[in-house]
């Protein structure tokens, strides 16, 4: 027997009936006056109202809360042709129904709904509404949110910066600590936003390391500097671990960054100290090398003629003096006056010989020394000379300097020797019991500087003045005023070698005024 031919209407009816029975959602329809025209099996079950009880009655009678909650408007919108979506998030539910299942999170069934116009041949003839039970979904979501909240609390409590990123490395979560440290506004660290507070020198490295990790799925580990609220950079170490799915593909990154600034600063300080030590060691080596060079120079000097001669000539002279003195000291009681006198004479002669030798050597040195002229601070030189010779200091003498003393072009050693000799003379040639008073001053004479050494000594006659600078020339007898007679010759020779001149003005009993003339040093 052939089944009867179906019309599309019959087919639709069949579908409708089964939909009514089987649909896992609530479906109801109304007419244009919002009277219920159908009520499916699901609704019967969950509302405890059978279709016969509700069909034909106004919607707002069956569900009064719709009017109270002003949801009737949506049905009116639908009558005008609009489709309305009611999300659970914004409404909670459409039809008040008890919550299914054992979960007590919600006391009412959570629902989402759609209200649409019901069209018959293009004309709106009523509304159709579908209600979905989303309680289970919401429970799950609630659990998920709780878990997220716990994670957030934990993430915001730990002292580290905690972050998560999608598989492509874009950060989708950073905890509060990051914002506390960087001072950035909330959410600004997401995506690649966190890079803006990384030190520019570290940022490039970070990006490269990041790309590597994403490519290979390796743990990301890096030290970099983050700019804090005060604009200072602090060192952090950041590590991120990949989280994989069942197919071993990376689906997420989970990372933490820790402040290691103090540790890093110490490390860097240590490294710097190490470097300093190494450089210091290097400098020490240099110093030793320098000293060795100086030593060699000294040895050369030691081996120079005048030095050797000075040493070797004066040693035996010293010996003579020494032995004579020993005899004088040790045998004092055993010696008669004559013997004592003789020994004293020996000692004195030796002393004189020593002085002569020394002065002759000085003269030689002055003659042979390589002379390079330089700008000399005369004040300093005079000071040094007097400092080294007790006879030129109080209480033995009184040397006054009229400042300033012009700087001159001279050879320091030669000029020092000259001044020393002139001062020695000035101090020596005074009347007995007279305190030597010497004035040192300088003046500009044309384009030369004249350095005057003026004393309150015994002075000298006119005739002897021109000869006084000759070698072995003496103004006075040796027994009156001991001296080698070479001192002034040295001065003259030294001054000559420096391209200058010297002279004296003197009157017996009125002191002497010795002068040295040299080129002035150019102004700085």
């Amino acid at each position, binding site marked *: 027997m052939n089944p009867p031919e179906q019309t599309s209407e019959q087919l639709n009816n069949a579908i409708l009936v089964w939909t009514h029975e089987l649909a896992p959602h609530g479906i109801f329809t109304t007419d244009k006056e919002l009277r219920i025209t159908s009520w499916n099996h699901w609704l019967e079950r969950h509302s405890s109202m059978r279709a016969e009880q509700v069909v034909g009655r106004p919607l707002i009678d069956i569900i009064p809360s719709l009017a109270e909650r002003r949801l009737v408007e949506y049905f009116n919108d639908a009558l005008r042709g609009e489709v309305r979506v009611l999300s659970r998030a914004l409404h909670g539910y459409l039809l008040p129904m008890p919550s299914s299942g054992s979960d007590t999170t919600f006391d009412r069934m959570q629902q989402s709904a759609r209200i649409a116009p019901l069209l018959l041949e293009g004309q709106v003839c009523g509304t159709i509404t579908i209600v979905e039970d989303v309680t289970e979904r919401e429970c799950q979501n609630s659990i998920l949110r709780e878990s997220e909240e716990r994670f957030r609390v934990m993430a915001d409590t730990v002292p580290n910066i905690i972050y998560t990123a999608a598989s492509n490395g874009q950060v989708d979560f950073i905890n509060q600590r990051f914002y506390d440290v960087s001072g950035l506004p909330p959410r600004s660290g997401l995506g690649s936003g966190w890079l803006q507070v990384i030190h520019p020198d570290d940022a490039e490295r970070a990006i490269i390391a990041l790309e590597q990790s994403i490519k290979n799925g390796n743990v990301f580990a890096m030290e970099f500097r983050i700019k804090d609220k005060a604009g200072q950079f602090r060192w952090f170490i950041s590590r991120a671990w990949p989280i994989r799915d069942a197919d071993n593909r990376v689906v997420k990154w989970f990372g933490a960054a820790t402040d290691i600034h103090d540790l890093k600063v110490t490390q860097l300080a240590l490294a710097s100290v190490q470097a300093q030590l190494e450089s210091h060691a290097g400098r020490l080596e240099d110093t*030793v090398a320098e*000293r*060795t060079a*100086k*030593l060699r120079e*000294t*040895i050369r*000097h*030691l081996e120079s003629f005048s*030095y050797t001669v*000075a*040493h070797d000539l*004066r*040693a*035996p002279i*010293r*010996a003579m*003096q*020494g*032995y004579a003195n*020993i005899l004088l000291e040790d045998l004092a009681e055993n010696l008669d006056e004559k013997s004592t006198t003789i020994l004293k004479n020996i000692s004195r002669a030796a002393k004189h010989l020593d002085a002569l030798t020394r002065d002759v050597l000085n003269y030689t040195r002055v003659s042979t020394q390589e002379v390079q002229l330089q700008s000399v601070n005369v004040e300093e030189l005079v000071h040094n000379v007097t400092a*080294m010779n007790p006879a030129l200091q109080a209480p033995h003498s009184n040397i006054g300097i009229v400042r300033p003393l012009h700087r001159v072009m001279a050879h320091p050693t030669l000029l020092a020797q000259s001044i020393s000799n002139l001062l020695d003379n000035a101090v020596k040639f005074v009347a007995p019991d007279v305190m030597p008073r010497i004035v040192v001053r300088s003046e500009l004479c044309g384009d030369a500087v004249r350095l005057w050494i003026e004393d309150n000594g015994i002075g000298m006659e006119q005739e002897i003045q021109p000869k006084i600078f000759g070698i072995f020339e003496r103004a006075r007898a040796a027994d009156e005023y001991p001296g080698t007679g070479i001192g002034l010759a040295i001065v003259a020779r030294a001054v000559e070698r420096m391209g200058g001149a010297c002279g004296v003005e003197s009157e017996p009993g009125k002191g002497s005024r010795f002068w040295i003339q040299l080129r002035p040093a150019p102004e700085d």
Partner: protein
Amino acid sequence: MSRTGTPLNVLLVEDLEDDRFFFQHAFERAGVNARLFIAKDGVEALDYLQNKDHFADAHQFPRPDIIFLDLKMPRRNGFEVLQWMQERSLLAAIKVIILSGSDEPTDMELCRKLGAADYIIKPIDTKRIEQLLKTDP
């Protein structure tokens, strides 16, 4: 450092016989509680300090508490001895007094730089030796 009772060890480094004589003379006259040891030039000085060769017996030639060092000597001069000692921390602590015929300021300066404690121009007298050795350590 020597405690009162223990004699000081004094090392004289001097190449000239006369100068050695004068030092010893003054030393004896000073009558201080010290023993005098002699090195005749720079090389002997180094040997003494290392207890090498002739000076191998450390008992006979003990470490000096104070050294009187001449500058101008053959083989190794006083400057070289000073520098050598400075490079060895244990020896750098020994007090060195330069005893030289030279009154050159450059010599004095260099000796000071090389760590000499004092610089005396020859000859040294009894009084000075007394001063130096009695106040030591």
